Structure formats: C-alpha cells, structure tokens
C-alpha cells in the first residue's frame, strides 16, 4: 500500500498540476487546441527522453544528446543548402546520430571511460562540429525546403470529430510511434531484458555470459539516433537549423527520466514512467507561460519540482 502510494505519487502530482492549471486558466488550458499544442511542444523532449531511458536502464546516461540534436539539424540543413533532396538530408542526420552514439558507446563500453566524462567530452565535440558545419550561422529561408518545414505543420485533421480546423500534429504522432518502439524494445524483447540485467548488476551480467560491451554500445547508438530525430523535428518546426537549438534538451530529458524513476518498483527507469515525467515538465512549461510567469522563475520552479519528487521518493523508499 505504501509502495503503491509512493509509486503513484508522481502520477498524482501530474494530475494535481493539470487540475491547478485547469482552475487557474479556465478558458484556455483544458481545450483541445491547447492540449494538442502541448503534445507538439513536448514531442522533441519526449523522443530524447524516451531514448535516454534506454541508456539510463543500464545506469548509464548520455549528456551529449542536446548537442547531437543541434548537430543533426545542422547537418540536414547544410545538405539542404547544397540542394540535396530531403531524404538525403534526413538520412545523413540520422546517420550522424547513430555514428555519434556509437562513438559514445565505444568510449564507455570498450575504452572504459565513465559515461559522465565520455559524453561530456562528446557534448563539446558535437557542439563544435555543429558550429563548424554551419559556420556559426543559422541556416534558414530558401535553404530549407518548404516540404521539410511543412512536416511540422502537418497532421491528421479532426474536422469530422467536431474539432473544426484542428490537427493532431505529425510531430506528436511521431513521438507516439517512438514511444511504442522504445516500449516494445525495453519491455518485450530479450534485448530489453539484457539492458535491465546490466542495470541490475553489470558484473553479474558479464559473468553470466552477456555480451555487455556490445549491448552498451548499441544502446548508446539508439540514444544518438533518438537525439538526431529530435534535432530534425526542431529544424522542421522552425524551418531552420542553428548550432545551439538543441541545447536545452539534455537536462530536461534526464530530469524527465528521473521523475519517471520515482514510479518504478525498485526505482528503475521505465519508458511509460518517463512519459509521465515529460508530461509534467511540458504541462508546467505550457501552463506557467500562459500565466505569464517569468521564464526564470519557471526554471526555478521546475528544478524544485524535480528535486522534490525525487526526494519524496527517496524518503518514501527508506525503511
């Protein structure tokens, strides 16, 4: 009973936040338009956090996702500027994401550097590369194909359902697809079982015959690809690419996974719990913006909430 309360506390927190904003902003908050809007606002963070969950299951983490997202956007933008077709730019960006992830995984699993140090290093490298490729400028305007920017504005119309003029944004749908893929991977494949085993006891996993290095490397590759997808979505949404646009993603993604971990039976990351963490951050951001709360105060509040949730969970699990 007590465990149940502790585990669902974060979910209750989300509900409380939603109720708070629904009361404070009766006109605008709980409308279909705003909810769809939130779903689009959080879609990039969501994908980053979902794929971040994959490495965090193994007790690793990846600080380089933000600069990887910027780099992927810039790579696609630079190729577009050179008149390459959209598919080529997208593929190249995803390829860069995977390569960067594999590099992270190589450093962590084969060279044996702590993930904190390894990905702190690559964070700087990826960021530098993004500046180098873009020459420190924003790639925008005619350089970005209209269809590429159009993707972020597209969606499935809800006209028939009584919501005239509303769309379920493609970005939100993409986030849902990634959520499903990560969920299947973590919960329903033997690969996912291996990830959790490594998180449970890496030495035991190794001695019980798991190919720990390969699994770790591949997990970092997946996180890198996730970051690249998020970077492409950013670029599509603002129809431009610049070398810093992904920089806010990393801390929020890790915070979302930590919020989610408060819901695990043993404090382990689960991707559906990560979704709850992402929703808390997204709803707070949306609601506080609408209430015209200063963005600096917003940051203080969000930080405090992450700490409070994790602290309550830590105190609750102590016996």
């Amino acid at each position, binding site marked *: 009973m007590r465990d149940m309360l502790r585990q669902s506390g974060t979910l209750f927190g989300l509900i409380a936040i939603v109720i708070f904003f629904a009361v404070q902003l009766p006109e605008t908050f709980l409308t279909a338009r705003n909810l769809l809007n939130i779903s689009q606002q959080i879609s990039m963070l969501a994908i980053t956090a979902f794929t971040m969950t994959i490495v965090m299951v193994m007790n690793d983490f990846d600080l380089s996702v933000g600069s990887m997202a910027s780099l992927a956007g810039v790579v696609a933008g630079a190729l577009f500027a050179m008149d390459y077709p959209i598919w080529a730019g997208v593929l190249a960006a995803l390829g860069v994401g995977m390569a960067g992830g594999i590099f992270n995984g190589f450093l962590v699993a084969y060279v044996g550097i702590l993930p904190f140090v390894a990905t702190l290093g690559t964070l700087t490298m990826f960021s530098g590369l993004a500046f180098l490729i873009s020459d420190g400028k924003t790639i925008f305007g005619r350089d970005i194909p209209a269809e590429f920017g159009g993707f972020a504005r597209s969606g499935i119309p809800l006209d028939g359902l009584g919501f005239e003029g509303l769309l379920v944004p493609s970005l939100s749908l993409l986030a849902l697809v990634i959520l499903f893929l990560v969920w299947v991977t973590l919960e329903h494949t033997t690969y996912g079982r291996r990830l959790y085993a490594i998180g449970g*006891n890496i*030495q*035991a996993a190794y001695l019980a015959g*798991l190919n720990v290095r390969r699994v770790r490397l591949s997990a970092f590759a997946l996180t890198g690809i996730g970051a690249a997808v998020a970077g492409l979505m950013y670029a599509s949404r603002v129809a431009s690419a610049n070398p810093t646009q992904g920089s806010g993603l990393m801390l929020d993604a890790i915070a979302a996974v930590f919020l989610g971990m408060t819901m695990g039976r043993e404090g382990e990351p689960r991707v559906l719990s990560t979704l709850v963490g992402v929703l808390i951050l997204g709803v707070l951001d949306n609601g506080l913006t609408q209430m015209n709360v200063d963005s600096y105060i917003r940051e203080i509040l969000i930080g405090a909430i992450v700490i409070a949730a994790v602290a309550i969970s830590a105190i609750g699990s102590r016996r």
Partner: protein
Amino acid sequence: MQSLRFVGLSKSYGSAPALRDVTLELAAGRVHALMGENGAGKSTLIKLIAGVVPADKMTVERDGQAVTLKSGKDATRAGFRFIHQELNVVPQLSVAENIFLARDLPQRFGLLINWRKLHGLAREALETLGITHIDPARQVGALSTVDRMLVRIASALVAAPGEKRPCLYVLDEPTAALSETESERLFAVIQRLKSEGAAILYVSHRMNEIMKICDDVTVLRDGIGVMTEKVATVSRMAIIHAMTGKDLGDAFPARTKAVGQRVSAVVTGLSSQRLRDANFSVREGEIFGIAGLSDAGQTELVQLFLGIEKVTKGQLVVLGRAVPKSPSEAWSRGIAYIPRDRRSEGLMLRMPIRANMLLPHLADYGVFARKGSETHRARDLARHVQLRATGTEQSVGDLSGGNQQKVVFARAMAGTPRLLLLDEPTRGVDVGAKFEIYTLIREMSAQGCSVLLASSDLPELLGLCDRIVILQDGRQTCMVVPEGMTTADLLARFYWQDAA
C-alpha cells in the same frame, strides 16, 4: 565484567516475528557460539544488540545492572564491538589510519598528523593481539583478507581515552572468506581476547570451528532459542538437529553413477599471469576439486575456462575446442559458472527470481521475450532446486543466502551444461541448504556434466570430489584422490615442499 545477559529479545518486521523472546547469557572469558540456519534470526539478534534496529522487547544487564541500548553509540559506549564478514576497512588508507579511523589521530601543532606516534600506537594495538607481522604504514588494500580482518579487530580494540576496554566482541562469520591457516591465526587472537576477560559471541556455519574454539552454544530456529548448551557436552548431531529440526550431519550424497570415460577438458603445461604449469584432465561426470591456501590461484584457474584469465603458455582444450574468449562464448558452449561472491558477481539483487535465473539463456527466446514461458520455466527450475520463495517475481535480494545460491544454481542448470564451474558454492550457506546444493552437484555429475569445484571447505572437497588438484601460489603442486583422507591429510598437502 563477569556476565552479560540479554533477556527476552523480541523483534517483528511487520506481522512476521523475526525473534521471539530469546535470552542469551554471555560470560567473561568464554566464547559463545550463535548458530542457526539462514533466516533463523541470527542477524536480527546481532542488529538488536548493536542498537542499529530498535527491539520490540529487550533488557540488557551487565553484572546485574541494567544497560540502555537504544543506538549504535550506546552499544559502543557499553563496550560492544562488532566484526562483520563484510569488512569495513578503507583499502586506500594505511593500517594505522584504519585502526584509528573512528578516533582522533594524534596530532602535531593541532594541525599535522603525528605519523610516528600514530604508527607506534597502531603497532601497540596490533601487539596486544599478538600480531607482529603487519606493518602499520602499509596500505590496507595490499593485505590479505585475514590481515584486513585482524586490522579491523585491532581497530575495534582501540579504546578512546577515558573509554573502558571492550567487554564483548561479536564476530559474524569471520572465517567465511578465510583459509584454514588464516582461520588459525584468527583463532589465536580470539584466544587472547578471551584470556583478557572479554566475552565473545561467535556466529558461524562451520561446525568444526564451533567445536574447536567455542565454550557455549546457542541455537536459533525460526526466531526461537531452541538450545543453549556447553559445547563440551553436546554432539554435532544434536546441534544440527536443533538447527534444522531434522538429522543431516556432515553427510554427503553418494555418487550414483560411475565417472565417464570421455575427457571433457585437458590442461597441458598451462601458465597464465597467475598460474604456473598446470597439468590435468577432467572426465565427463567427474567432480574435480581445486584446493589450496586462500588466494593460491583457485579462482583464476576456474576463470581460465571462462576466458577471463588469459593463457600465456601451454594449452587448454575444453569440450573438444580451444579455450573460450569470453564468458558469453563460454556459456553458449555449455560452460556454466557459479561465481565466488553471489551478491556482487552473481545476482541482480533488486530484480525478480525469473530474470536472475534466465539471464544467460535469453538467446533461447530469439528477439521477443515471452513472459509467460519465462515464468513457466523459472517455476520449473525453482521447483527443481527446492527454492523457498513466494513466487518467481520475488526480488532475489529478499531471499536468504542459501536460497539466493539456489537461484544461481538454477541459472547454471537451466542450459544443461557440460562443464560446471563452481567457486565456493556453499559459502555462507546454512547446513540444510548446503546438503541440497550437494545433491544438485551430484545430480549434474550423474548426467555426465564435469564439475570443477574450487572450495576452501575441506570436508566438502573430500566428500564430493573424485580427485583434487592442489595449488600453491599459482603453481600446481600435487593431485590427490580423497579416498580415505582426513581433512588434516588434505591440509598438510597445502604446504608443499620439495622433499614431499
């Protein structure tokens, strides 16, 4: 102090009583054994008298006077010292610093550490225990396990200025990681503490030790004190009977099937970083022992077959092929491994029994995991090893030591291995579970699986093995057939001499 009485010790966790109205009387200058199977309440009892867990009921009297025991500080103040099997020494610091870890170090000008004085005091503390071979300036990380334990005991002995001498030492399975010679050294120190008038509470699973060094014994079963006797007047069988409620003895299940003819592993002129010139072969169904003083290379020899310890010279052919390159290759070729330390190397403690058992066998399921058939398989395995658990989803960390070890066995047996590598398979396991594990080892051997058994438990080696190879400092010194040998005979072989 003359006597120390702990009366009416009771403690429940939730609705489950862990200890019910146990009374323990300790006398100065006597070693009192505390025995019982895992889960019988020994750890709870120790936690209560250490003041780290609040008792539901407990009165403590020293020479008839009441003692308050509400916190760890109270216990220290009362002169109680605790030495656990998991050693809390800081390997990076020197012996002297470790001894004075919880104390103020002697200083110069109130600022600098007075090293000379510190080392002198540390040497004194060690000498009161009759220990002269440990240099106080040495880093603890470089010491052997027994020496670390002696440092720990020395540190427990050091009294702060104005503090009384300790009157009670509680040793919780101190010899679990020690070889027989090292244990001897510890026993000598215990004798010394005893002669100085301290009371000693000694927890161990090893019957031989109890008979040898203890004066009194109290047996717990299911949280109740079922026996308190003088060791001199009680038989081993009676103690085992009290612990288990049934008669087991030191009995080992007998071999049911002859050793096979085919050879499953051949080692020729093999050397590695740790090992020198090993030569032997193991046949199908054979139980092949690996013995020696502690840290003589047993673990490295076992890990050779896993591809962890690398061959530098000579040859190793296992199951018809060259040595595997990694544990994952070893497992996929039918080599199963049970590591020395189940908690740090064997189990994912916070994960369910199911996940722990099937870890090396995930490849059997292809890409997609199937929880239904996993659970089914885990349940069959649990039944096979007679696991006592609430279900296959229970966290392994909640199980007793013996049951945790059965989970590791179930994992190894699940793939029907052809070579089973065991490193201290019954360490910290109670008598009842020990016997069940021996039965499992016999069963594997009867199925034609070769077993490599590295162990520091001499009766276990003699009772199970067909042959035993003896290592000394990484070198293979001899090979013995246990038939008709006593533990003393075997121990004597650990000290190899050119003449022998």
